């Protein structure tokens, strides 16, 4: 795991998420792809479980930092951490080789993290301004459509080529 590359990737993704993703919004301003969710799924399914857990919490922290809810941190750290760890544990069961499976995973994890974040937010703040439907359905759907296309450049940047990993694994075992 290249931690420096990971840090750069998370920072770039969080900055893009907070600024440029609004340009890609459709139907309503809050329906936009969630780059950090795509990163979460990418690292959770491609890393060792230990690294996957660390990555999930760090990405959750970045998601909370860029959250539009000012003064509220924690919901995404917890939800990203929980579902990132769970996804990492299910690596053997879920296959993400095909784009459609990757998309389905992103959609499912996105819906679950958004739902949990929403509930945790309600614990701290009495009301939330976000639309539940947009957060739980439309945004994960949009991210799921975009996610598979981003996995290739992310894998290139993180030097996580499957072929290389397979060769290394072959050598190891």
């Amino acid at each position, binding site marked *: 795991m290249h931690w420096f590359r990971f840090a750069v990737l998370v920072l770039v993704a969080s900055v893009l998420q907070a*600024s440029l993703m609004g340009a890609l919004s459709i139907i309503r301003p809050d329906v936009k792809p969630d780059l950090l969710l795509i990163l979460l799924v990418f690292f959770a399914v491609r890393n060792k479980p230990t690294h996957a857990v660390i990555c999930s919490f760090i990405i959750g922290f970045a998601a909370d*930092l860029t959250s539009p809810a000012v003064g509220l*941190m924690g919901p995404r750290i917890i939800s990203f951490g929980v579902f990132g760890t769970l996804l990492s544990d299910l690596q053997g069961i879920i296959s993400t080789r095909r784009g459609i499976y990757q998309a389905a995973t992103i959609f499912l994890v996105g819906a679950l993290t958004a739902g949990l974040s929403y509930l945790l937010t309600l614990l701290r703040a009495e009301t939330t301004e976000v639309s539940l439907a947009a957060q739980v359905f439309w945004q994960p759907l949009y991210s799921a459509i975009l996610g598979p296309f981003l996995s290739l450049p992310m894998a290139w940047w993180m030097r996580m080529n499957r072929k290389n990993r397979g060769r290394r694994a072959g050598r190891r075992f």
Partner: protein
Amino acid sequence: MLFTWGMLAGLIFLFLVPKDLAGQLQLAYARAFRWPLAAGRGLTLASRTATPPVQDVSRKDHKALLTAYGQTRNELANLQAQLQEAHRTIEQLTKLRGRPGWESVPLRPAAIIAPADQAQNELIINRGQQDDVAVGQFVLSPDDHGIIGTISDVSPKGAKVRLITDPASKIAVSIADLHVSGLMEGRGNNTARIPLISTKHKVQKGDPVYARKQPGLDIRIITARVTECKPDADSPLLWDIKVQPVCDVANLSEIAVVISAARLPQ
């Protein structure tokens, strides 16, 4: 173990970290990456301006809102034009009144609507009886500070200006510092003449010609300059004085009326 620590960190952030501190952390992030964030948001705003999203508004409401928006924009443009006009008027008046002796001259700025005739001996302006404009009042150029004519006809919202070069124009004038007065008569072709001035007065080419004072107008205002001065062919004891207005009327778009007591045309 790592998961537990992560969860603990999340719960601390959620329940124990005060909102102010969490907000400061978010602000610190925003401050640290303000340049890329600002650039990205600028791009986002630009893309939204190009195709404004319509949210939670029915098509009918959207159309009505667009119509109202268009009307408001037009009204705003009109108001801005009026404001600009008012500023220009104030600027002109300030410029005129800033000159020594002009402080007490009652002026009414007006715009030239159209020349009244082909020969440009008359003008129509957008001020009338409602603005205290009356027949016989002097009309001057705000830029050249010279009299260009007098009001010859007036209606409630408009007036006709007879230029000093109009053949029907007759204005009482004095020449330079000489104690002599006469009547300046228009001749057309952007010239006028002053007859019946005795040759004993030393009138020279280039001498200024002033309009005589009026009730309410305590200063002399230049109106023309002597362009030719020679003894009259029929009466050698009198000058044949030709004059030319000091103002270029063809390039004027705005004038000012001296709101003095009305004077009957002579």
